[in-house]
């Protein structure tokens, strides 16, 4: 529901990921992080929730 609300507000769905990884699943952790990084990199740079401290 959180992802849906973010998407509804216009934030790309791929910026939010949920995963269930056991402490013994190191390889799954690496795979998931890689996948997330790739998906977020594929999106444009986004400053929607980034505060502009230069003002």
């Amino acid at each position, binding site marked *: 529901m959180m992802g*849906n609300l973010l998407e509804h507000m216009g*934030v790309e769905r791929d910026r939010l990921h949920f995963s269930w990884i056991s402490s013994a699943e190191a390889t799954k952790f690496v795979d998931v992080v890689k996948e997330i990084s790739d998906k977020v990199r594929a999106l444009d740079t986004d400053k929607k929730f980034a505060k502009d401290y230069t003002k």
Partner: protein
Amino acid sequence: MDTCIEKIRTICADLLAKGKVQKVIGFAEGSIPMASRPIAVTSKEDVAKLVFNATCGLNLANYVSDVLPKEGKIAVTAKGCDSRNLVTHMVENQVSRDQLYIIGVPCTGMVDKRKIAALFEDEITDFIEDGDTLTIVSPQKKEKVSKKDVLRHNCRVCTHRNPVVFDVMAAEPVEEQSLDQPFADVDHIAAMDPAARWAHFQELTKNCIRCYACRNACPLCYCPTCFVDESSPQWVGKGQDKTDINTFHFLRAFHCAGRCTDCGACVEACPMGINVRDFTRKLNKDALELFGWEAGLDMEKRPPLDVYSPDDPNDFIK
């Protein structure tokens, strides 16, 4: 609704006189027309102060915990939505059923005060309600409008006008509405492209002054310290930076996920006329579609985000 106020007053006077309850929470006239305010009445002499009309748009469930005595009961006059929030309060262990005497008031909707004010260029000096006809007076003119033309949006899409829980009813139940498209407003936003959706919410909240009236009017917001007031850690900035405004509205709404009854108190309270329901409505739609859930209808069921069920949708977990 004029007839039911007599019944409400009689019931309240009787409850207070017999000592069955220590206080009654209801609505009283405000200092200006259409500004009904919550009141806690403790003596039967003050019962005459109680009113009930189409301007009682706040949610009285919000005030229950504030005035709850250590021992004994309080009575609450409850519209459909107030009663659903009382159920939510009970489900969330904020109050127990035996501390409450619920005076159910069937509701045909509350008026959108901004819509009425927009009909006038000058200040409204009187508001008279007679069934579906509202007579609104200002120094310049007198306007008669039909109540259903100036209903608040949440009342127009309300499907629970009658209280879901009560000890006594102040009037006969009213007919419930059935809607072809209950979430047309959400669908309208969802149909936009992502950039337009973001722009819509930016435009929506641009006038937010961070007064937290929406939070304070909301019966769901009872945390002793709200996340916006925390300073260690400070989750969100205090000012009107748009990132902080976005964070506040997004999180305030999400805290209501699966709990919101769409009572409209947040919008009613907003001094800037922001329809903050645009956020919570999406959550209500999802709660209904994903979990078949409408908040505050059943005292026996736990809210969907509060409980695990094997058939919960979980395709978002990778």
